[in-house]
């Protein structure tokens, strides 16, 4: 046998191009996502003004050519603050989701695969977590651990844990007795390998949707906590705080302080929701034809 046919895999770029061409909405959400990521990275650099610089002279001025989003009560440029806040909000959401996804996947996979006592203990812990209204729990955690950004991340991660654990556990349960798992055992895979290399990758497509939706929720969560005064402290620019501070000014007519950060917040959450579906298409091999 001299000439071995090289085994070609279709390139990821070709696949992505196919998916994107099929679904304009997904493509749009991808673009938006990249824009948000760019903003998170370069926000500081492209902001026209220093987000912390106050200028009493132009306080509370409506949107104009000089200040596209207007200025707040201390004369700070709202646009700059919104741009810079992207990094913080996105950062909190991403880290929190990564943490809870990581831990939740491990717990869920063990619970689903081994069953028995492992499942019972993990499920009871998760049930306990879920017994609390999650937002209140987050508030409590931040209040107890201390009013810092780190603790918002941990709190958000903890209250999202049940979602991932339960979904992963359910998906693993469905696939645990599949033929290919038995075949994997016959091929000499131990428990750990089967969980990590055979079962979990099949669960990933479903999780992609959950991760993306959860990301939107995590952003809202972080903003919500800051809205009520926990976590992020002024003068740090953050969408939630800005909405909270701007809320008091809506009645007096200065709508731009709350609306703009609120709108960008909404846009970000919207983007992640759409992204979930698109990601699932990309990751699930059944869609690749």
């Amino acid at each position, binding site marked *: *046998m001299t000439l*071995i*046919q090289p*085994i*070609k*895999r279709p390139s990821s770029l070709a696949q992505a191009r196919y998916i994107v061409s099929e679904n304009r909405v997904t493509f749009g959400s991808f673009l938006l996502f990249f824009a948000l990521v760019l903003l998170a990275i370069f926000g500081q650099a492209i902001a026209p003004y220093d987000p912390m610089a106050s200028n009493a002279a132009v306080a509370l001025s409506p949107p104009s050519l000089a200040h596209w989003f207007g200025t707040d009560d201390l004369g700070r440029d709202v646009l700059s603050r919104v741009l810079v806040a992207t990094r913080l909000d996105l950062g909190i959401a991403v880290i929190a989701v990564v943490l809870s996804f990581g831990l939740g996947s491990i717990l869920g996979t063990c619970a689903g695969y081994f069953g028995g006592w492992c499942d019972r203990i993990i499920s009871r812990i998760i049930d306990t977590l879920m017994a609390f209204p999650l937002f209140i729990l987050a508030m409590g955690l931040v209040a107890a651990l201390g009013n810092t950004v780190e603790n918002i991340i941990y709190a958000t991660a903890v209250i999202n844990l049940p979602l991932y654990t339960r979904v992963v556990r359910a998906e693993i349960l469905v696939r645990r007795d*599949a*033929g*290919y798992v*038995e*075949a*994997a*055992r*016959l*091929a*000499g*895979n*131990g*428990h750990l*390998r089967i969980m990590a290399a*055979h079962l979990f*990758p*099949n669960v990933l497509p479903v999780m992609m949707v959950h991760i993306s939706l959860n990301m939107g929720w995590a952003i809202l969560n972080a903003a919500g906590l800051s809205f009520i005064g926990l976590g992020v402290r002024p003068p740090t620019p953050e969408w939630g705080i800005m909405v909270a501070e701007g809320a008091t000014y809506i009645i007096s007519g200065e709508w731009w302080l709350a609306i703009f950060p609120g709108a960008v917040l909404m846009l970000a959450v919207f983007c992640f929701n759409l992204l979930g579906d698109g990601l699932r298409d990309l990751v699930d*091999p*059944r869609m*690749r*034809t």
Partner: protein
Amino acid sequence: MLQVTGLTKHFPVASAGWFSRGRQSQALYAVDGLSLTIRPGESVGLVGESGCGKSTLIRLISRLLEPTDGSIVFNGADIGQISVGKFAHSAERARLQMVFQDPSDSLNPRFTAFDTITEPIRRLGTQQDRSRLRQRATELAQQVGLPPELLSRFPHQLSGGQKARVGIARAIALNPTLLILDEPTSALDVSVQAVILHLLADLREQLNMSYLFVSHDLNVVRLLCDRILVMYLGKLVETGPVDDIFNRPQHPYTQALISAIPAFEANPHRIPLTGEPRSPINPSPHICRLYGRCPKGDEHCQQVAPTLQPVSDYHQVACHYPAPLS
């Protein structure tokens, strides 16, 4: 080569059983004190209907399930004692492989055909080198009649017959001595079935393997096997060479099974099995499992459960009144 003695598997059943029996049910006797042997190079057929326990039996033998009792001796080693988790790493794992029934279910949807076929080699073999793996994969693909271009495809891009071949290639990748085939052609069309059956026959000669061929299709079993074991509700009811079983079946169940096979000739004489099978939950050890459905059956069948008794050289039947059809 394979010696199974008194193999038993109970599944604890908490609440009401299969047929809504009372709450005192305790265990489902999927396999009950079963013994069999397979010699090197032999092809043994295992027939029985759904619920008879053949899936459980082959999973016990191939060490995917823990037995409740009994011993499984393979190549001299008592593999029944090694736990499922540990057996995956033992030396005997490569020697005992299985081809699954549903090709769609037994291939990991995220693995290409190449990944699937080379998985056993990567885990249990010594070759890790990428190019050697590719070479071996191509060899195996050709051996099973799979065009090598298809190796980079995912299962959903392959036809039923192609998936079946991938499953077979994976199973023979490490040259096992015993290959268990769990209804390998039942999910395939008649035209593809013929090809796969020929393939299996050829492979057996080429690689000098023994087969344990499980099927409900007696016609197929007849073609590939030297010896047949007939199973009913966890026990073997008749065993013997292919010709004996087909031409001179002596157990009422075997007779019913053979008469039920549809054939191209006019309606053969049908032997009815009335009613539903007995419950496999906590079965009484004194009553024959077929009692109630059997066209024969009397007091004696209710008091003493029959065991396998020889009726001729290699032919054994578990019945108090074995008799060939007139």
